């Protein structure tokens, strides 16, 4: 190739020509090469399409779950109407379905569990985020708390049945309520242990993100450690902590096995926090395979639909808050 500069612009005087030999072998070779590169392009397109389809599968799965739940609970929505949600009696034998005992049971267990676990999870978050972000003991605590989330829920349930229920029964005898042991209080205790890690680990990362100049400014004004936590760290991280608590709540609402094993499984409205009851998840686990009538089955699925919607909304609000906090 030979380039020359004329009038300040580069022109090519001699463009190398590609000579295609007309011999049969050479044509064959060229054809092969073309086919190969076409095949490569095709593979690439197929690969990109496959990736997209895999992404689509996630969307289809969620839509499929939602649609299945809605379609399968249509018979009960049609037959029972919205009053299903606040009907106080659940008696499949005489075809009376009211979800209120289970809604109440779910709300009671979840919020009681949340109330018990919040002081602990916030303390872990403050300890790991502010007092001791590094060192072997904090690391050990962090790993151990994360391990709480790893233990299978059926094992929590089994332990609860064998150890916690007798203890609660003793307690109930002492304070003079009917000593059944199983019930809302026992399941709340188990749940409270199980949901500590969720709020704790999120809270820790939020507290880690507090800018140090804010804390240093407070110290420079003469604030004590507690005053810094109280009036700098907690206000700064309050939405993050709230999001962590929401995620814990979502976990508690959907938790099935541990609760099913220790809540006592009665469809009566719980009289107090010590009486046995049922949550939405536990009643599904117990009665789904026994449901012999279409409306009965459909009523159970409607519970599942309600559970699905509630947990999705709670989780989404939590995620939105986290996104907003971490993007700032």
């Amino acid at each position, binding site marked *: 190739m030979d380039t020359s500069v004329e009038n300040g612009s580069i022109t090519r005087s001699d463009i190398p020509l590609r000579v295609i030999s007309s011999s049969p072998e050479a044509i064959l070779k060229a054809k092969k090469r073309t086919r190969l590169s076409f095949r*490569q392009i095709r*593979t690439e397109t197929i*690969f990109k399409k496959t*990736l*997209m389809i*895999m*992404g*689509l599968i*996630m*969307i289809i*799965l*969620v*839509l*499929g*779950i939602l649609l*299945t739940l809605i379609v*399968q609970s249509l018979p009960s929505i049609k037959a029972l109407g919205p009053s299903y949600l606040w009907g106080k009696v659940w008696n499949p034998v005489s075809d009376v379905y009211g979800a209120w005992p289970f809604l109440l049971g779910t709300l009671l267990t979840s919020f009681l569990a949340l109330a018990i676990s919040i*002081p*602990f999870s916030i*303390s872990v978050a*403050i*300890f790991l985020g502010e*007092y001791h972000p590094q060192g072997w003991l904090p690391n050990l*605590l962090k*790993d*151990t*708390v*994360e*391990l*709480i989330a*790893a*233990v*299978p*829920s*059926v*094992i929590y349930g*089994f*332990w609860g*049945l*064998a150890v916690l229920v007798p203890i609660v029964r003793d307690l109930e005898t002492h304070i003079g309520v009917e000593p059944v042991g199983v019930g809302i209080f026992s399941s709340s205790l188990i749940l409270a242990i199980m949901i*500590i890690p969720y709020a704790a680990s999120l809270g820790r990362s939020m507290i880690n993100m507090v800018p140090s100049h804010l804390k240093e400014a407070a110290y420079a004004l003469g604030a*004590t*450690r*507690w005053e810094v936590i109280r009036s700098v760290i907690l206000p700064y991280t309050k939405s993050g902590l709230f999001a962590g608590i929401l995620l814990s709540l*979502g976990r508690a609402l*959907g938790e*099935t*096995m541990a609760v099913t094993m220790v809540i006592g499984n009665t469809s009566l409205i719980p009289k107090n926090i010590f009486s046995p009851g049922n949550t939405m*998840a536990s009643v*599904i*686990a117990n009665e*789904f*395979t026994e449901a012999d009538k279409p409306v009965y089955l459909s009523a159970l699925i409607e519970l*599942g639909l309600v*559970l*699905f919607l509630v*947990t*999705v909304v709670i*989780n*989404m609000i939590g995620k939105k808050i986290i996104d907003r906090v971490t993007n700032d």
Partner: protein
Amino acid sequence: MNIESVKFRLGKSSGFQILIYTLAFACVIPLLFILGYILEAGITKINWHFLVNIPKPVGESGGGIANALLGSVLIIAVASVIAIPIGIMAGIYLSENKKSRLAYWCRLSTDILQGVPSIVIGIVIYFWLVRPLGFSALAGSVALAIMMLPIIVRSTEETLKLLPDSLKEAGLALGLPFHRVIFKVILPVGVGGILSGVMLSIARITGETAPLLFTAFGNPYLSVNMTKPMQSLPLLIYNYATSPYTDWLNLAWGASVVLLLWVLFLNIFTKIITRKWKVQL
């Protein structure tokens, strides 16, 4: 400012510090209690016969959990075979298309799927697979695979997002086709993060009971047929733990120890991977 009020404030500060220390370490106590109790109650039940025999009927002592062990391994293996390719590819898709509308909806779906209660997944799979085909281990595997997916997708995406773009651009500039860049450059570099996501998801589903209740259903006999009901460890624990017979309770305690050790091992292994490859999950 008098010295008394300063002292009071300092005292209050250390008081709260002690309170927070106490509460933080109090969290560990129930876990230690549970682990200790399960190990103490179950470790004596485990021996060779326990691992290779199937449960005996009520009234006969002895028997083991071989059917549940094998069932758990099979169900989890099939679930992984389903979920790992889909999850990793969806993760790659998300990291390659950060801004597209489909990616936004895909990300949203992953978040939603992560929060879906496991029992709801059980119900849905019941209608998708059990109604037409009957209770089967395969249905259980699909249910567990759906629970694995969001974890794998998120960890793959987060890992690949951290890789520098120059890595991919260098490969493409050399004339490598896109899929070879992904398989030969991007995935080998991100393997640590992806692997720990996969391990985490397996650890998560190993103890899941609720989605198996209406799908794999449980089976008192040894079975390797994926199209028939199959026992799994968590199902066995749930069924036998709520039974009144001592022999069955003993089986459940032994099975709990096996399950617990299995899950703890997976978690510790994941921790080691995460530390070694310095992955941020």
